């Protein structure tokens, strides 16, 4: 078919028309709600909060699960909307779920360290749950950077963790498969933290955006096509809300995490020191379920897969999930496969 600029012009006019209609829907979109599964606050120190999700029935897996999300972005991803909620799914499957909320560090948190996060906040939360439930150990589920935290924690306090689950978790930082891993090695983290104090979430988001340089352009095209569909528009807006809700990073923690892990790969070398504890991954003696995403461009499989080779436990499983870093949590397949797989694995080890 030959090109006709008249048709192209009409197409442009129709784009404008779609925009007008879409903006009207956007105007009427109302409040964008995420993380709506009911929960209660059980503990809070500084800006960190521990929540317990409400259950109507007794859990079928007795040992509770504490979820530790990354400091980057928010745990709301796990409960974005009722029909795409890993949290709701886990509750329906019979799990008793707790959640760490790391909060939003401000300028005053620039001195908060990795030691404070691991041996302070995370350890306190674990102790609170143990005490509240009258048990010696709990299940720990870490996601992304929260998974790295969970791995470090489990190596320091193996007696407090019954089972460890990591999802899309970076452990071996030697790889350059992901651009973030490559770029981080060329950055002067001291200058960065000294310059910012508390590292802004926007700074990290800029880096994430460059991973998929044309995403903004395709987003516009996709958005145009869904703007007249209220449900799809709301799905889109919830995701946008999550993407833009990017907390700042406590300076000192960020400094150590980036230098010791991204740049020097100390965790797998057995050289990482957190507070007074030297971290040895061989001390992870509890069962491990390591879940990674095949198309993950933020945490490449090459960084997650080797975890199983470094731990001390013999009960370890590697679970391959098709999709990207975010798709693991919001894709329709997640609800059908991921939740049940986690429940099944935990139930088998709930004695």
């Amino acid at each position, binding site marked *: *078919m*030959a*090109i*006709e*600029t*008249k*048709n*192209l*012009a009409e*197409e*442009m*006019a129709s*784009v*404008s*028309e779609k925009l*007008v209609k879409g*903006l*009207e829907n*956007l*105007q009427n*979109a109302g*409040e*964008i709600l995420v993380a709506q599964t009911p929960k209660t606050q059980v503990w809070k*120190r500084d800006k960190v909060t521990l929540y317990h999700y409400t259950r109507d029935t007794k859990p079928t897996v007795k040992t509770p699960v504490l979820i530790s999300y990354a400091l980057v972005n928010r745990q709301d991803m796990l409960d974005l909307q009722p029909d795409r909620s890993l949290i709701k799914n886990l509750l329906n499957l019979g799990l008793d779920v707790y959640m760490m909320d790391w909060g939003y560090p401000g300028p*005053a948190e*620039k*001195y908060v360290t990795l030691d*404070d996060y691991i041996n302070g906040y995370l350890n306190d939360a674990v102790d609170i749950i143990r005490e509240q439930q009258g048990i010696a150990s709990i299940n720990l589920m870490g996601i992304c950077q929260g998974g790295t935290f969970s791995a470090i924690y489990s190596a320091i306090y193996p007696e407090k963790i019954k089972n460890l689950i990591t999802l899309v978790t970076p452990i071996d930082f030697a790889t350059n498969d992901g*651009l973030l891993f*490559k*770029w981080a*090695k*060329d*950055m*002067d983290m001291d*200058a*960065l933290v*000294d*310059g*910012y*104090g508390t590292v802004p979430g926007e700074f990290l988001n*800029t880096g994430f*955006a*460059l*991973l*998929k*340089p*044309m995403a*903004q*352009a*395709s*987003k*516009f*095209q996709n*958005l145009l096509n869904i703007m007249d569909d209220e449900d799809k528009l709301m799905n*889109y*807006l919830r995701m*946008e*809300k999550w993407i*833009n809700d990017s907390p700042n990073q406590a300076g000192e923690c960020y400094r150590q995490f980036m230098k010791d892990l991204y740049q020097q790969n100390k965790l797998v070398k057995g050289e990482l020191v957190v507070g007074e504890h030297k971290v040895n991954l061989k001390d992870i003696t509890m069962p491990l379920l390591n879940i990674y995403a095949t198309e993950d461009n933020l945490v490449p499989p090459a960084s997650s897969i080797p975890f199983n080779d470094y731990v001390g436990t013999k009960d370890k499983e590697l679970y391959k999930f098709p999709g990207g870093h975010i798709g693991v949590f919001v894709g329709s397949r997640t609800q059908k496969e991921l939740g049940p797989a986690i429940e099944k694995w935990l139930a088998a080890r709930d004695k």
Partner: protein
Amino acid sequence: MENTKNFFENWVETQKSMLENWTEKAQEFQKNVAGGEILTKGTEMYQEWLKKQQENIKTFTGAAEKTGEEVKEKVEGTVENFFDQWKAFQEKSVNMWTEASQKMTGFFSGINSHNPFDGMTSSNIMMDNARKYQETWTNTLKSMSDSIKTPFSAQSADMASKTINDTLGSMKKGYESFMKLYELWAPVFKAAENKVFNSEEYKKMMNPVLYKELMDKMFGFDALNPLKNAYDQYTKNATAWYEKMGTSAKDGYKSFKDSVDQFAARLPENEAFFTEMFKNINSQFKTSVSPFFKLMPEGKEKEQMTLMNDLGELYIASANKLAKLQYLVYTHGAKINEQIIEDFSEKAQKGEANTDFNAFYTNWINMNGKAFEGLFGTDEFSKLQGELVTLDSKIRTTTDKLMEMNLSAYPVVLKSQLDELYKTNYELKKQVYEMGKQLASMVKDTVVTNSKPAATEAKAAVKTEAKVAEPKAAAKTSTSKK
């Protein structure tokens, strides 16, 4: 945006006034030193200086408040007209399309339906025609783009939710990129419609300025480039300062400013040019500034000027790196664009090219996406980005120091003082936390010890005596005593 601009303009003005005041008083001071009246006049001069500085600050803050009010007024009353504006825009856009289409058809019919490039032996004539093509479309599309921006801004002002606002912002950016790509390619489409299938001619129709604008929008160089603004601001400050420093300094400054202007005009050209350019800017800056440094007495002012000089060097280095990074992106993108042109030309000739722009846009995104991911994965890009981040961080640190020096005479809390406070607060909180934990542990141990049955306790005591007291048991004993 306008508000921010006004704010900084006011800030620059204030800086300028403060510098003028400082220069004036410094000159008076030198006269008094020469006349031996420094002791009697010194205090009076300081008071006058302070008064003037305070007035300057007051004028600035007053202006800033006014700017805020102006913005508020602008926002109110525009929102309700949003859909009217859209309606008007729609009507206007249809007219503009018709007009543009007529103009372009006229252009082609004027050359009697044969290949418009046939018989054009001189490449200049060809270029000139290509430019005319481009101009017609650019003007039309620019008017359209401008029309669409107004309702976007009005809408943005009304959206209470940050997410909706952000979405609107990203739609605006997306729309602009979409239109910019169309703007860039429109002459090629028109040529293809008129059966011109020559990829080399298509390449000539691509307007490099538009192409740069497209890349800037795609990668947010404008948004990601606060350095550029800061650099401009720095230049303004330097202008004010040099102007007060007499003829010799003005000459030095002129050569510095020429280089800066040249920089702005020629961005981007080529990498070697930039390296040379920045070297020159830097050396000219140093040459013109250093005589004044020698004249200045040791003290706060000299320290301040030294910091300003450091900051200038950092800005220059940063602008250099940024220009290199942009150059890398532009040239890489241009190569992809050429590939797309060749692909399009081949397909258009066979009648296989995308006949709708959305499909063309999708293909363009996919090809660019792959290519840029490749570029961003190179060592060159990674290192350049790392250097840029480091320079940006150093600029931040130096600016903080300079700002503190400027503010030290005023009764405001400085950033470094706040940092000290945060640090003390953090350390104290940590101590309290540790003590709380110790206390909780002691209480727990006490409860355990007290709740043990007497017989067990006795047994334990015997055991303890028989063996040697374990450290933990000893600790517990001492705890319960406490």
